[in-house]
């Protein structure tokens, strides 16, 4: 039982990290209908910028963080100006391809500028595992403390995003754009400006995800593959739903860890890579728009 709980908790916390990446996808999809494949590249780019700014220029962490935020804002502006604006009103698949192009470009650009080794990232998150429920089970339940921190950060981030979306003027504008581009534009919401904001927010979410994953795995190229793990989370939770991203992440994280531990030995192991997708697919067969996605009514 103790072992089961440990696996479950480990999975849930890994799931929180997937959710962090999935959040970036959801934000952009909600506001612009773009399926942003570059989110993984943005995670890597943000983390690389952050860690290399600290290493090369020996500046304090806070300054590096502020500079990285500036870089992400500039990136959002460049993407809006150079890619989104010329492609406005193009079919979704062209925009999806464009984000694939962005992700190739960012991967190359980030590594060309900042180097392509594995960089350790230490932002002062304690590393010792925490022992829980020692009195209940023999040996207790070991929980890595960086995962706990990640969970707390993710919770704060979601709360902040919720407040931002519900309570601020910009948040209302974002929701209006998500609802209907043309209607939003006709009541005077500047679309281009909104897109810059959305991509900035997605960039900041990518930065947070990059820092969390970077602390866990080191900042390296393979961080971009984390994005691939966020995709099943996305379809499970629904493309348009922030709570969906969180709950989807938890289900996927817990599901794949449990499957790997309890099912993996029977089929040769390493099933983590595809189990998440199969799990998401099974959900989709029951609910084609994801758990919390909006139901679309097709009109002929």
């Amino acid at each position: 039982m103790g072992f089961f709980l440990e696996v479950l908790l480990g999975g849930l916390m890994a799931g929180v990290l997937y959710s962090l990446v999935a959040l970036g996808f959801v934000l952009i999809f909600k506001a612009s209908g773009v399926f942003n494949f570059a989110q993984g590249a943005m995670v890597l780019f943000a983390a690389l910028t952050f860690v290399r700014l600290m290493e090369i220029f020996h500046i304090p962490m806070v300054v590096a963080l502020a500079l990285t935020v500036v870089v992400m804002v500039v990136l959002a502006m460049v993407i809006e100006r150079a890619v989104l604006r010329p492609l406005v009103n193009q079919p979704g698949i062209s925009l999806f391809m464009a984000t694939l192009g962005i992700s190739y470009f960012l991967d190359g650009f980030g590594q060309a500028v900042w180097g392509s080794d594995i960089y350790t990232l230490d932002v002062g998150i304690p590393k010792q595992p925490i022992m829980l429920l020692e009195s209940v089970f023999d040996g207790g339940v070991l929980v890595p403390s960086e995962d706990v921190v990640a969970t707390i950060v993710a919770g704060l981030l979601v709360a902040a995003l919720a407040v931002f979306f519900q309570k601020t003027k910009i948040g209302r504008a974002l929701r209006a754009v998500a609802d209907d581009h043309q209607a939003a534009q006709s009541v005077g919401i500047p679309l281009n400006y909104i897109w810059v904001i959305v991509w900035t927010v997605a960039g900041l979410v990518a930065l947070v995800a990059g820092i969390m994953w970077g602390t866990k795995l080191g900042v390296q190229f393979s961080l971009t593959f984390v994005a691939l793990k966020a995709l099943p989370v996305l379809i499970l939770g629904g493309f348009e739903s922030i709570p969906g991203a969180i709950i989807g992440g938890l289900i996927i994280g817990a599901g794949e860890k449990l499957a790997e531990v309890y099912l993996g030995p029977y089929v040769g192991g390493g099933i983590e890579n595809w189990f998440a997708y199969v799990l998401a697919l099974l959900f989709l067969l029951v609910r084609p728009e994801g758990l919390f996605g909006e139901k679309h009514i097709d009109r002929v």
Partner: protein
Amino acid sequence: MIYRESGQFKTSYVADQAVFPIAQDRWFIAAWLLVGFVLVPLIANEYMLRAILIPFAIMALAALGLNILVGYCGQLSLGTGGFMAVGAYAAYNLCIRIPELNPIIAFVIAGGFATLVGILFGIPSLRIKGYYLAVATLASQFFLEWLFNRVQWFTNYAPSGSVSAPPVTLFGLTFDTPVLKYLLCLAILVVFALVAKNLVRGRIGRAWMATRDMDVAAEIIGIRPMYAKLSAFAVSSFFVGVAGALWAFIHLGSWEPAAFDINRSFNILFMVIIGGLGSIVGAFLGAAFITTLPLILNQAPQWFGIALSTAMISHLEFMIFGALILFFLIVEPLGLARLWRIGKEKLRLWPFPH
């Protein structure tokens, strides 16, 4: 003046329904076939055949297959690499386990296996669509990659996981020189391109296109969505499976599952989109563009005499590749095939625009 169909009268239904109704088109295609089958083998050196022309022919076949699914039927798929792997490993196992079987026939049967797998993974398309489907097809990519990595029966218990293809022979002729390999790939490509061209302008192709344009409306006018979508998955997977078998047997020779990873899927999707969705010519143009681009990018620094570290070159390659994709999408979101069509329209009026 030259490219005009005026004066070409059709006197029979057969002539009216010809694949290329305009005489100039027929001449053009014949000229290209002549170049492809006669001129190129005569002048191309071994490097060109190995590095450009053979990969181009095979990738064009895969792009044709994916174009049927994505461009004609509108079902976005990111699992092409997985289906190619099915073709490759099915052909390998057929050749290993039934030694009497001719590899060329094995390719076709391998395509059949890919078809079955394609239909299986196409079933979710009946419930889900758009990006949800795209992500769902990733499941096939990861699952198949894992399957060929972990289940050793498929690799005939090869200790390193890498397998080598037996030689390909036909009527006592062994396809071992680059020229012969190239001719084989090109011949298969031409046959499949003709099949594809005829499929998409027939009843089934119209059903696909109607499903692509609006699936609900298509259903209402009497097209069975299950039939349309699954047949697109089946035909597409067949093409892609044969391409995978060719890629493994002819181009690579010996390979491991990583040869068919997700980057392969993206690569072929790039070809389809850059070339032009829903266009047979587009598949060729896209394949030509995407297969030659990395080679050019790789060579370019040497031409300018810039010495760069290999890591830097690969980063720059990524950057330029991404930037070019963006550039093409912005300049012509409908792909190279669209430029082709514009060129043809212009040529019709040239040199007297009135």
